[in-house]
């Protein structure tokens, strides 16, 4: 598996161009930066801002759901025509739901998560000076920023933002007459998403080429940390699936603005017969979910990668089944392309196709289960250190289990008939990809904050933040399962029109207050984050006793990451608590020749010379009774 004598891998010599120091101005350092660490911070801060905005939107519609009959003058003051007389307008309610979903899925959990941590960690954990193309990287951020601005600007157009749900199924999204949000708001949504996908592609191509080409000496693929594996596979998923969304979106733009009928057929809006013929809304659903399903793995895989790293580091134990973890990530990536139809069981798609998608969908549960069991095995007999990052990583595993199991219901076409588009679905994906992924992101922020800002975040506030958010998220989403089992549909403005749903109103009040509590808890995080950037405790170089390469780089940020030569890698990243070694971690940069007492013959699987040397050493140093 590893080597004593390191093979000469393709290592580029990029040592010469970081020698001369360019003097950064404010503009080149903070704004148009090409340094991957700064771009990561830009992604993170934009992502956090968007997350707070989307969270506020969710609280607004939760208030409507809890108190459908009450008026809140404040809402009228804040939202004006969108909340006449202090009650949210039904069309604006749809906008809130739509933009909340769009921002959370794309802007926070895709760009905010992958953008931040892929940018930060790929070069640092692989031992590269920067990304393969720093300029493309900068463009990626600025396209994302522009997309965010355009998406938010749709709140300021006359008829309000897009409101056809984050899935923007035509004809609803294609016919401006069908609802106010399908006017300019939808146009802005589409423009924003095209820019977003451009950003995502530039990022993705960069990540893939960096991982493949710019690893340091000794860093073969099987020595990469699981974070990098996850980012790498995520980037591949994104590169392959996002263009399909653009294709779908462009055809929708054609239908909206140029009179084509890709998705439209036999339509009569408000009594008026429309000229569209021959299109199919199902085509859009296929194109959308061809991205849409890999997208949920684009969201969750980086979170899983991050939590693998954090759980292993803080259990002071190697991740259990490293190879199985990688293979299950690969399995999830491949399978994620052939399961999109499970979003469409009841759309009128050929039922036989539904049956096939159901089989592939339930197969994808196997690698997910393997990952969960491996996390549990990693915790088993560990020496667990509860940093806030670790708490969030454990929370992620809990959410991943709870939300993943309900996937077995929804992935089953027969059961999906009655559960489709109910609150059961809302509960399912908010746990498995919403809460789990955001916990992965928060875990990453707490864990790599010292790497990003050179200071530590406050632990106690982190604990408070974790417990309020963790309990809050369960209180919000667990009861929703039962609403779904009672046949309560999602995206309903009010339950008042149905006596059978009115009895869920008290549950809605409870959920809303739980949501407000977890929302307020995020202020603890925001305060901690901002405060620690400027006044946090200064960090040491390797605050968590971690093995990976980023902790061998100096705390002060350099353009080029390491002064002098890039470190060479000799071992896998998970040698924690290896018996025979005096410390409970051995960084990847320590060669086997320096750790003779802790080497195992397993370490020399592909290395004849090394194994021979090890055997000789073993004979010379017969094993003693292990000293505890």
């Amino acid at each position, binding site marked *: 598996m590893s080597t004593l004598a390191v093979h000469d891998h393709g290592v580029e010599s990029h040592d010469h161009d970081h020698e001369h120091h360019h003097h950064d101005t404010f503009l080149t350092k903070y704004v148009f930066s090409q340094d991957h660490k700064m771009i990561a911070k830009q992604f993170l801060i934009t992502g956090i801002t968007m997350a707070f905005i989307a969270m506020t939107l969710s609280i607004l519609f939760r208030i409507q759901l809890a108190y459908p009959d009450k008026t809140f003058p404040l809402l009228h003051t804040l939202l004006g025509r969108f909340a006449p007389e202090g009650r949210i307008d039904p069309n604006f309610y749809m906008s809130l739901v739509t933009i909340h979903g769009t921002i959370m899925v794309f802007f926070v959990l895709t760009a905010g998560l992958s953008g931040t941590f892929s940018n930060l960690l790929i070069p640092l954990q692989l031992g590269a000076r920067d990304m393969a193309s720093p300029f493309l990287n900068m463009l990626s951020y600025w396209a994302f920023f522009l997309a965010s601005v355009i998406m938010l600007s749709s709140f300021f157009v006359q008829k309000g933002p897009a409101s056809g749900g984050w899935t923007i199924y035509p004809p609803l999204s294609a016919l401006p007459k069908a609802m106010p949000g399908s006017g300019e708001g939808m146009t802005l949504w589409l423009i924003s998403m095209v820019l977003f996908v451009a950003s995502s592609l530039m990022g993705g191509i960069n990540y893939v080429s960096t991982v493949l080409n710019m690893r340091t000496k000794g860093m073969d693929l099987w020595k990469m940390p699981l974070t990098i594996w996850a980012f790498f596979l995520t980037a591949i998923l994104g590169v392959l699936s996002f263009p399909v969304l653009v294709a779908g979106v462009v055809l929708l733009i054609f239908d909206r603005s140029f009179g084509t009928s890709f998705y439209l057929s036999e339509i009569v809006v408000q009594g008026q017969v429309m000229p569209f013929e021959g299109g199919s*809304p199902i085509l859009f659903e296929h194109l959308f979910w061809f991205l849409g399903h890999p997208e949920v793995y684009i969201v969750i895989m980086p979170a899983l990668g991050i939590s693998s790293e954090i759980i292993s580091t803080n259990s002071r134990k190697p991740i259990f089944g490293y190879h*199985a973890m990688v293979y299950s990530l690969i399995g999830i990536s491949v399978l994620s392309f052939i399961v999109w139809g499970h979003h469409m069981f009841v759309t009128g798609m050929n039922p036989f196709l539904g*049956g096939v998608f159901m089989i592939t969908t339930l197969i994808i549960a196997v690698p997910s289960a393997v990952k969960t069991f491996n996390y549990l095995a990693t915790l088993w007999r560990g020496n*667990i250190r*509860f940093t806030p990052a670790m708490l969030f990583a454990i929370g992620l595993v809990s959410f991943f*289990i709870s939300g993943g199991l309900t996937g077995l219901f929804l992935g089953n076409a027969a059961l999906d*008939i009655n559960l489709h588009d109910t609150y059961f679905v809302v509960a399912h994906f908010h746990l498995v990809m919403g809460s789990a992924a955001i916990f992965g992101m928060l875990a990453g922020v707490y864990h790599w904050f010292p790497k990003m800002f050179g200071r530590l975040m406050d632990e*106690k506030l982190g604990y408070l933040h974790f417990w309020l958010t963790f309990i809050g998220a369960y209180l919000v989403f667990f009861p929703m399962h039962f609403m779904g*089992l009672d*046949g309560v549909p999602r995206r309903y403005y009010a339950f008042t029109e149905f006596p059978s749903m009115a009895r869920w109103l008290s549950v809605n009040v409870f959920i809303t207050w739980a949501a407000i509590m977890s929302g307020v808890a995020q202020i603890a995080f925001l305060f901690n984050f901002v405060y620690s950037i400027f006044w946090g405790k200064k960090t040491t170089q390797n605050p968590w006793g971690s093995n990976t390469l980023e902790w061998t780089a100096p705390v002060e940020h350099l353009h080029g990451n390491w002064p002098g030569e890039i470190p060479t890698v000799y071992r896998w990243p998970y040698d924690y608590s290896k018996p025979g070694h005096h410390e409970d971690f051995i960084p990847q940069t320590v060669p086997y020749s320096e750790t003779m007492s802790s080497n195992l013959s397993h370490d020399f699987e592909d290395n004849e010379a090394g194994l021979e040397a090890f055997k000789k050493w073993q004979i010379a140093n017969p094993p003693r009774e292990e000293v505890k």
Partner: protein
Amino acid sequence: MAFKNIFRFKTLSAAAAMLLFGTATAMAQTAPAAPAAADGDSAMWIGVGYYVLLFVLVAIIVGIVGKILRVYDLTSQIQGKKPINWNNIMGILFIVFLIAGLYGAYWEFTVQGTMTLPEAASKHGVDIDNMFMVTFGITVIVFVLTQICLFGFAFIYRGSDKRKAYFYPHNNTIEKIWTVIPAIVLTVLVITGFFTWKTITNSNDVKGDMPAMNIDITGHQFAWEIRYPGKDGKLGAKDYKLTTATNKIGVDFKDQASFDDLVADTIVLPVNRPVRLNIIAQDVIHSVYMPHFRVQINAVPGLPTYFKFTPTITTMDMRSRLDDGKFEYLLYCNKICGGAHYNMQKIVRVVTESEYEAWLAHQKPYLNDALKKELKMVDANQPQAPAQNRLALNN
């Protein structure tokens, strides 16, 4: 950090305080001066101020508790005692969370679990419910075991300086076991699910069963139109281009079968007779959702869909079973379709065969007088030539 000089924490907090109290006093000043119309406004701002103050208070309390803990920690360290072991506290909190969480889940299952849908009122619905219970049993077992392991391990193996973790990078046997077992369980679920799904979606009439009766349901923003076949048992053809204010769903009267079609306000179904709902959407995607019958399929413009099912429990029967005199089966929209999506419902009533016949006899024909006039039909039995028909529609 270049920003550091800009944001001095103390100045920042002072500014925030100024802002807060400044607006508060400003409110207080303007309130009495403003005319009566502003009374609501000031009340609102007082309410807002109240919540902001509440939040500030909570934040201060959190800060004070934090400081007290710190002082306590430091003084006990000075006295030579051990510092607070936060690691232990977190481990204990996890086990507390596990117990409370399991109890909470149990409470939810027993309290809210009983608020869910009543037993399936259709033939295939029973299969779905059985499938659901099997899946539920499996997932609950896995849920409880894995959560116990997760939080249990977090508690038991909470760190201490005295020990070292157990170096255990992999074990192929264990990994194979926990790959194969889920694979087997999932295969069972997939196969049973696949066959259940196949039987439900099978559109052919089962031999020996009554042929399914056809009912048309057309969705538009924001209502459903229902059309029953008349005596001939056949629904007439449709063409969306013929839609007008009176011919709401564009029935084509060139087809003789359409003459005796009926419109209805409620969906009334005879019990134990297979029904085929033909589902059409006019403007945007809707979804026909009848949760009590475990029926759902989208209504898609340009793509007629259908769902075949057999209701098995009459409304009256269900009322007595649920002990709820007002119970009604419902059909409602379950795909986002616009502003009034939340109120697009129809009552569905399942009755005995004789009640059904009696009800059907009272339904109005689709081809009503207004429509006849519009189509310039001299006599309902003699439709005009198609060319004239079209001409009339173009008016």
